[in-house]
C-alpha cells in the first residue's frame, strides 16, 4: 500500500475581481498520485502551477475543495479536530524561507522544542534534551540552541526547521523548495542531509521545486504541474530526460545547464502562463504550445500511458522534440 494516495484533489479559491465580482481560481484541479514509503516524489512546476497549494492540501494545512487523501490507509478528509491533529504528527512540512518560518523572538532551541510541548506534553527540561539530540542529528552544534534566528545563517535556520519537523518522528515530509533560498555550497550540504535523514529514518518525501537539475538528482518519481493539473508523471529520469509532454520539453530546454558546449537554444515557449482565472478551454497548455490544433481547444487531454510515462497530451506520440 502506498503511504500517500491522493485522488482527484481539487482546491478552488474564491476571489473578488473589480470587473466580474466573485470568481473562482482553480489552483489545484483534479490531481491524483501515489507516493510509496521511503520514496522521494518530486513535484515540478513554475510559480502559479499549484504545486505549493497541492503540498499544503496533502497535509490538510489547506482544506481541499474536494477529493481524497489517504495517509497510510487513513482517509484524511474524514478526520476532524483531535483525530486530525494526531494524524498530523506523522507528517510535517519544511518551507522555503527558513528565517521566515522561525519565530524571531524565540531561540532556535525553543522553536525546535515546540512540537514536544504542543503534541507531546513534555516538560521543558525533557524537551531540551530531545532537541539537543535532534540538533546533533541535523548537524547543528549545541550552542545554536540559545541563538536567535537573526544570529544564524540561512543554512543553519533551515537545519533548525528540519530538526523541528523531525521532533515527532514523522513518516512523511513535504519539502517546499527547501533549498532555493540557499547558496550552491549550502544547498549541497542540505541536500546531503535530507538524503541521509531519509535513509536513516525511512522518511518519505514530497519534494516541491522548480529546479529540474535538483529534482533529477534526488527524486525517484516526479509529476510536472501546469495551471493546477499534472501534465506528465513517471520515473524521474524518464520524465525529465525523455518526457513527451510539450511543457516538459519546454522546461527541459529552458533549464540552464552548466555546460558551455551546449549550443544556446532560443527560448522554446513564447508568452506567459495564462491567468488561473481565465483558463484556456481544452488543454490548458495549448496557448503556449507550438503543436496545438483545434482538437486541443475542444477536448481536454487526460493522463494516459505513453512510453512508460503518463502524459496528458493528445499528440504525445507524434511530437518530435526539435533542437530549434
Amino acid at each position: 500500500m502506498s503511504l500517500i494516495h491522493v485522488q482527484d484533489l481539487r482546491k478552488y479559491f474564491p476571489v473578488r475581481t473589480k470587473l466580474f465580482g466573485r470568481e473562482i481560481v482553480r489552483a489545484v484541479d483534479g490531481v491524483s498520485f501515489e507516493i510509496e514509503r521511503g520514496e522521494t516524489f518530486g513535484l515540478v512546476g513554475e510559480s502559479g502551477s499549484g504545486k505549493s497549494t497541492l503540498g499544503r492540501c496533502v497535509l490538510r494545512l489547506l482544506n481541499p475543495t474536494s477529493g481524497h487523501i489517504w495517509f497510510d490507509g487513513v482517509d484524511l478528509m474524514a478526520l476532524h479536530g483531535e483525530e486530525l491533529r494526531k494524524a498530523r504528527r506523522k507528517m510535517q512540512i519544511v518551507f522555503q524561507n527558513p528565517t521566515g518560518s522561525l519565530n524571531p523572538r524565540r531561540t532556535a532551541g525553543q522553536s525546535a522544542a515546540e512540537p514536544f510541548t504542543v503534541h507531546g506534553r513534555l516538560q521543558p527540561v525533557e524537551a531540551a534534551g530531545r532537541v539537543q539530540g535532534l540538533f546533533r542529528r541535523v548537524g547543528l552544534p549545541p550552542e545554536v540552541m540559545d541563538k536567535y534566528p537573526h544570529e544564524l545563517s540561512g543554512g543553519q535556520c533551515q537545519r533548525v526547521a528540519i530538526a523541528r519537523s523531525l521532533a515527532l518522528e514523522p513518516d512523511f515530509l513535504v519539502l517546499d523548495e527547501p533549498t532555493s533560498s540557499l547558496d550552491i555550497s549550502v544547498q549541497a550540504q542540505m541536500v546531503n542531509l535530507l538524503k541521509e535523514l531519509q535513509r536513516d529514518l525511512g522518511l518519505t518525501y514530497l519534494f516541491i521545486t522548480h529546479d529540474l537539475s535538483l529534482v533529477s538528482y534526488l527524486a525517484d518519481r516526479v509529476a510536472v504541474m501546469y495551471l493546477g493539473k499534472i501534465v506528465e508523471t513517471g520515473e524521474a529520469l524518464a520524465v525529465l530526460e525523455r518526457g513527451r509532454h510539450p511543457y516538459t520539453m519546454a522546461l527541459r530546454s529552458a533549464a540552464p545547464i552548466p555546460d558551455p558546449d551546449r549550443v544556446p537554444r532560443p527560448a522554446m515557449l513564447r508568452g506567459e502562463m495564462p491567468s488561473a482565472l481565465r483558463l484556456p478551454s481544452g488543454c490548458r497548455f495549448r496557448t503556449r504550445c507550438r503543436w496545438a490544433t483545434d482538437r486541443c481547444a475542444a477536448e481536454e487531454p487526460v493522463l494516459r500511458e505513453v512510453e512508460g510515462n503518463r502524459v496528458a497530451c493528445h499528440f504525445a506520440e507524434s511530437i518530435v522534440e526539435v533542437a530549434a
Partner: protein
Amino acid sequence: MTALLEIQDLSLDFETEDGTAKVLDRVSLTIDEGEAFGLVGETGCGKTVTALSILRLLPGTARIRGGAVRLAGEDLLAKSEEEMNRRIRGRWVSMIFQDPATSLNPLYTAGYQVADVIMEHEGLTREEADRRVLGLFRQVGLPDPERIARSYPHELSGGMQQRVMVSMALACQPKLLIADEPTTAVDVTIQAQILELLRGLKQDLGLSILLITHNLGIVAELCDRVGIMYAGTVAEVAPVRELFRAPKHPYTQALLRALPRTDARGHALEAIGGMVPSLYTPPPGCRYHPRCEFAMATCAHRRPALLEHAAGHLTSCLLYEGVTE
C-alpha cells in the same frame, strides 16, 4: 578586442556600527567591448558591490581604500557626481536589477517612465520620447508596445517588467549593461526568454554585459568569460569553457562539484565544509584557506595574487605560485 572596463585592485570597506567590514580586497577584472562577463559567487561575496562601484552607487558607509575603475581609459573614481550623472550613468553604463517590480515606479505607466529617462538624458520633447519608447519596447520584444506603454507596472508580468527595465537601460545606447541577477525573480521559461534577449542585444548592438549571478548554468549559456568571487576577493577569471573544463582554484572546483547532476544520483553531493567567513574579521592570507582542502601552512598568512597561470586564465592561489607548504 580592447578592454572597455578595467577594475584594478579595488579595495573597499563598509564602516558600520559593528566595525569595518572589508567588503572588497584587491578586486581586478576587465570586460572587453562586446563581451559578456559573468561574475559569480555566493551571497555576500561582493559581486553586487563590485558592480555598484562601477556606477559609483555605493551606500554611504562605503569607503574606497584603493584601486581604480577605468571605463574606456577614464578613471571613474575621480569623476564628480555631476559628471557621473551627465556622462556615465545611463549613457555609458546602465544597470538592471533582480526585482523589476521594485525598480519601476508603481504610480506611472511603463511608457511614461521610460520616456522620462530619454527626456532627461537626450533633451527630447515628450512626444519625441514617446515615439522612441515604442521603438525600444519593440527592440526588447514586448508584444503590443502601445498597450504596454499605457500599462502600469502591476498590470505587467514579471517577465514583461524586466523587459521594460531592459528597454529603459538601453534608452541612451550604453556600451555596458550591468545585469544583477536579472532572472532570479522570474520562472525558468521566462528566464530563457530574457537570456535570449540579452544574447540578441550583445550580438546586434555589440553591447558589453556584466552579468551578476549565482547560477553557473546561466553563465554557461550567456557569457564569454567568468570571474569567480569569494568573500570579497576574485578567486579565478577564465574563458567560460576553460572554467568549466579545467577550473584551477580549489573554490571553483568545489563549487562545480556541489552542483546537483543526474549522473551524481545515488552519491552524496560534495559540499564545501564550513561557512563563508565574516567580512569584519576575514581570515588572514587567502580568505578561502580555512575551507580549502589543499590549504598549506603558508596560505594562512600569505595572500595569493591574481596571476595568469595559463593563457587568459587567472587564478589567485598559492598552489600555482610554486608554494609547497
